[in-house]
């Protein structure tokens, strides 16, 4: 159950396995500056401060340069966390624009955490949770 922590406010958002950072944040009721949502316009870049992610599609080198591939730049509409990651936005804060979606995401995260704790107590390996609506 990958989570995205937003520095410096410390918000924690639960993502479905395979979900992009952008998709996860919007689904959890947050908004920030985004554009094409398809990796082309470079507007949705943030800094990744901890954790790893991969890009789910090829990304144009005019969008993410070689240097940016290595300096923690994270193109959020294409970045899929490999585990828990921490990000920091550039020049703006995420805005909570939908409390209802945020509550749903919080519940999903708490349920997934409880499942993981119960499974590890029982000695069974953590299995991937699927999103339940």
């Amino acid at each position, binding site marked *: 159950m990958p989570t995205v922590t937003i520095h410096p406010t410390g918000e924690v958002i639960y993502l479905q396995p395979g979900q992009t950072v952008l998709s996860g944040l919007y689904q959890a009721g947050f908004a920030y*500056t985004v*554009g094409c*949502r398809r990796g082309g*316009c470079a507007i949705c870049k943030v800094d990744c401060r901890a954790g790893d992610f991969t890009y789910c599609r090829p990304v*144009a080198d005019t969008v993410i340069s070689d240097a940016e591939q290595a300096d923690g730049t994270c193109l959020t509409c294409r970045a899929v966390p490999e585990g828990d990651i921490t990000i920091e936005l550039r020049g703006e804060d995420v805005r909570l624009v939908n409390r209802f979606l945020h509550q749903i995401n919080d519940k999903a995260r708490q349920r997934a955490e409880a499942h993981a704790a119960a499974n590890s107590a029982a000695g069974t390996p953590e299995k991937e949770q699927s999103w339940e609506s």
Partner: protein
Amino acid sequence: MGVMRLGYAHIRVTDLAEAKDHYANTMGLYETHAEGNKVYYKAWDEWDHHSVVLEEGGVGVVKYGWKVQHSTDLDDIEAKATAFGVTVDRMSKGDNPEIGDGIRFTTPSDHVFEVYHEATLVGTEVGVHNPDAFPRHLVGVGVPALDHSLITAEDPGQMDRFLSEVFGFYATERVQTSLDDDADIIATWMTSSNQIHQLAVLSGPQGKLHHFAFRLNDWNEVGRAADLFSMDDVPIDVGPTRHGITRGQTVYFFDPSGNRNEVFSGGYLAYPDRPTNVWTPEALGKGVFYHSRELNDAFTSVLT
């Protein structure tokens, strides 16, 4: 008549398979040719070999092709472009599959333009002999034709002059800083014909693509296109809505590589002697998006 129309838009895509799915199955273009990392398409009501070229690797626009009516137009445009201070190269038949010889130059806005007179005639999907109104088995939106494009340039006023002097275009609408004679041009909508615009230029970085647009007939088709975008998980940028500028009805959306597309219908008939509509900054929101009357941040900042 010189330039008749925007003949082709050659676009970069990051993933050819996804792009092909979008342009063929969502937009309904017909594949006419493929070679290497490129695929060529035409829309059903177009007769020339192709109007959209997809090239794998990157995003944004590679070049535009403009079709002229007479072969002598090529010499005329070459002379005028050279006089404007642009370096013009000759392009050979076959440089582009099924496109004749012509000229190629980089505009003051750093976009590559090719101008040509001949393209292989493929024919529309309904033919010319007792044609039906539309093909029975259109796919997806089933757009009939490529319509226009919007590009960005550091100096739209310079591009307004360039397109006027070199292509013989005229401005149907402009956004300018004020009504003063020496106002700066922020954006211009230009055409050579009765079509409301063939190319628009907006203030922004050099060499960038804002969008390229496909034609539709009316509001109903624009609404149906938006429905199909939801079915196919196409990110909608704005719309369905109307542009105050051109009066066209529109949906802005993104292809799978993040290039902005548009479906566009309507727009009043343009004439060179019709006085140019002028928009000033206080009404820019209404000019661009007639219903929300707000210029969203993405309109000026999201480019490929």
